């Protein structure tokens, strides 16, 4: 009965915060876990529980899945990405009745990869989607290998659907020797930007089962691509869902012989789409719903967000690790127009205090970038990195204050690409979106 009191208290906290005009965030969940660390055990979810994890693309994929599934039933989801145990508990407290029952057809949870064992020890999972594993904030999260082993261990007792990226060796390996659960693989057909050697840095060069060096037919981005082990069966999967015929510039692709239109225009988003479609097919969702969801979909939270500021078309994008940054640079390079770029780099705890990852970003291939502004707590580190890639130092400007950086960015006309890491998101978006401009000479 104690858990019911905890739920009641936390519901009050949530209501109270709402009265104060705050969205609650992780506080109700934080309190619930403090009062009863096993609180997650007591929620009874009527529908299917679906989790999405991976280094990059969790929020986008969770949103897409929720959009698709909401066509066929009620969905509860942490769409804003409060993705550790406290945020997920908050979401459940908010949506349950006083006995801990949550009535919905689908509970779709984005979950931080390191919190999978913690959250789903007590919460029964029906479908588990794994996107990719890249190096990410090494000082905070440790080596990728340790993480993969942790997830693999969690999966030993797992009996639901396991939906894996066939083209990421770090993810694909999780399907090996899993007899208790049903394993599905999704993939993306070779696209026009695929390369024969690894363009950016990646992980997982050796077979986890026999240590032979993996061979690749091609790389889509980072270490994601068509690979196999020359020595054992690793990499020879039956693909259950494949996105093909990709034309990123036109925003088109094919799935099950149907042509789709989309605003998704990066290769990594194609993988997210393939993952979401794989999951949807398990729940027998109609192709029409898939089509509509992908067509109308746009995220406005700093993930490839397009706005016009001071007459300048501006693309805002959050990057948290080298893979995300390299994909963003490649995306920017598809645009042949002249442009200016701003990179905001912070080193707060949530970003990872180690900023050496910026040296794994390939800046030597910039296409028609006329000026680069750097900002954030590590603005100079960013400037030094870009300089050493060979970019003309005279075209680099450094402003530690974000407002000053944005004011200087819009001094010139033309297209802007604004890139920032995690804790810089709010301030950068605020400064850009609130920029009033001096077009009329004030």
């Amino acid at each position, binding site marked *: 009965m104690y858990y019911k009191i905890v739920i009641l208290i936390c519901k009050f906290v949530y209501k109270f915060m709402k009265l104060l005009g705050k969205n609650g965030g992780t506080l109700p969940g934080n309190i619930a876990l403090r009062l009863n660390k096993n609180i997650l055990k007591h929620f009874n979810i009527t529908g299917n529980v679906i989790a999405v994890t991976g280094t990059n693309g969790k929020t986008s994929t969770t949103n897409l899945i929720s959009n698709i599934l909401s066509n066929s039933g009620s969905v509860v989801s942490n769409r804003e990405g409060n993705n550790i145990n406290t945020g997920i508990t908050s979401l459940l407290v908010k949506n349950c009745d006083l006995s801990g029952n949550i009535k919905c057809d689908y509970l779709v949870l984005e979950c931080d990869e390191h919190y999978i064992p913690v959250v789903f020890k007590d919460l029964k999972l029906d479908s588990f989607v794994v996107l990719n594993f890249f190096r990410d904030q090494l000082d905070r999260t440790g080596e990728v290998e340790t993480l993969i082993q942790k997830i693999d261990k969690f999966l030993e007792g797992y009996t639901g659907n396991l939906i894996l990226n066939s083209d990421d060796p770090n993810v694909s390996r999780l399907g090996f020797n899993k007899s208790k659960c049903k394993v599905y693989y999704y993939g993306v057909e070779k696209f026009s930007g695929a390369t024969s050697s690894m363009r950016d840095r990646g992980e997982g*060069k050796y077979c986890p089962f026999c240590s032979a060096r993996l061979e690749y037919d091609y790389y889509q981005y980072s270490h994601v691509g068509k690979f196999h082990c020359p020595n054992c069966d690793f990499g020879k999967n039956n693909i259950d869902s494949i996105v093909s015929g990709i034309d990123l510039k036109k925003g088109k692709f094919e799935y099950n012989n149907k042509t789709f239109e989309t605003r998704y225009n990066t290769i990594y988003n194609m993988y997210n789409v393939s993952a979401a479609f794989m999951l949807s097919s398990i729940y027998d969702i109609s192709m029409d719903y898939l089509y509509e969801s992908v067509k109308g979909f746009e995220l406005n939270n700093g993930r490839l967000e397009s706005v016009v500021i001071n007459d300048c078309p501006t693309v805002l994008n959050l990057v948290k690790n080298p893979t995300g940054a390299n994909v963003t640079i490649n995306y920017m390079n598809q645009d042949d127009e002249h442009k200016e770029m701003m990179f905001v780099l912070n080193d707060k705890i949530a970003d990872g205090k*180690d900023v050496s990852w910026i040296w794994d970003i390939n800046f030597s291939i910039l296409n028609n970038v006329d000026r680069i502004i750097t900002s954030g707590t590590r603005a100079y*580190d960013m400037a030094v990195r870009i300089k*050493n890639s*060979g970019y003309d130092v005279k075209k680099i400007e450094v402003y530690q204050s974000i407002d000053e950086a944005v004011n200087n960015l819009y001094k010139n006309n033309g297209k802007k690409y604004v890139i920032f890491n995690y804790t810089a998101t709010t301030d950068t978006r605020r400064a850009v979106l609130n920029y009033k401009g001096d077009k009329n000479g004030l």
Partner: protein
Amino acid sequence: MVYKILYLYPDLLDLYGDSGNIEVLKYRLQKRGIECQVDTYSILEDKPNFSDYNLIFMGGGADREQSILSEDLVKYKEDIISAIDKGVFVLLICGGFQLFGKYYKDADGQVIDGLGIFDYYTVSGGKRNRNIGNIIIESQIDGEPYKVIGFENHGGITYDISNSFGKILYKNPNNTYDFEGFMLDNVIGTYLHGPLLSKNPALADYIIKIGLKCKNKKEIELEPLDDELENKCRDVLITQFL
């Protein structure tokens, strides 16, 4: 004039942006009109001529990768000793630093043999006990005191170091020792990532100078470069941490 760099196991030891050190050296050489040639060596490839280079470089990697390559590296022990004796500069970061010592004992107590070129050895501080954080040390570069700024992230602690790279001025409180790394005239072994040379241009130039001297048999004067961004970066960090 050509500056030849031998980059060991770049595909295995590239975890913390260490290859940025090569980019910094390349940039600083090219700005001075010196050609920079980077050759790489990894497992199963043809044996390189170690003494033929101005610099031998090795970065840091994950434990698993490190044990795969230590068996390979040990074949070249005599060649590497001979290159060091001839004055080739050797820059070793993190895992590379550890592997040039006697051994590395990991968190499970398993011992990975090192090359044993130097007398130090490394013992893991336990799985949950890593030294992670910004670090500033005071080193002697070209006879002058110089603050070297970097970021450390390692589980092992290295003991029995005869000549340290420098005295620690700022570190994460977890870190329990006062001196960092290992240094001879033409060898530096250190835990500093960042990458190391990105925030320490004088150190980068020292490595260029010693490497050039070894092949050209005389001191080469290096033209000063515009290091305004690097120096401002250093000022910001030194002010913040010291």
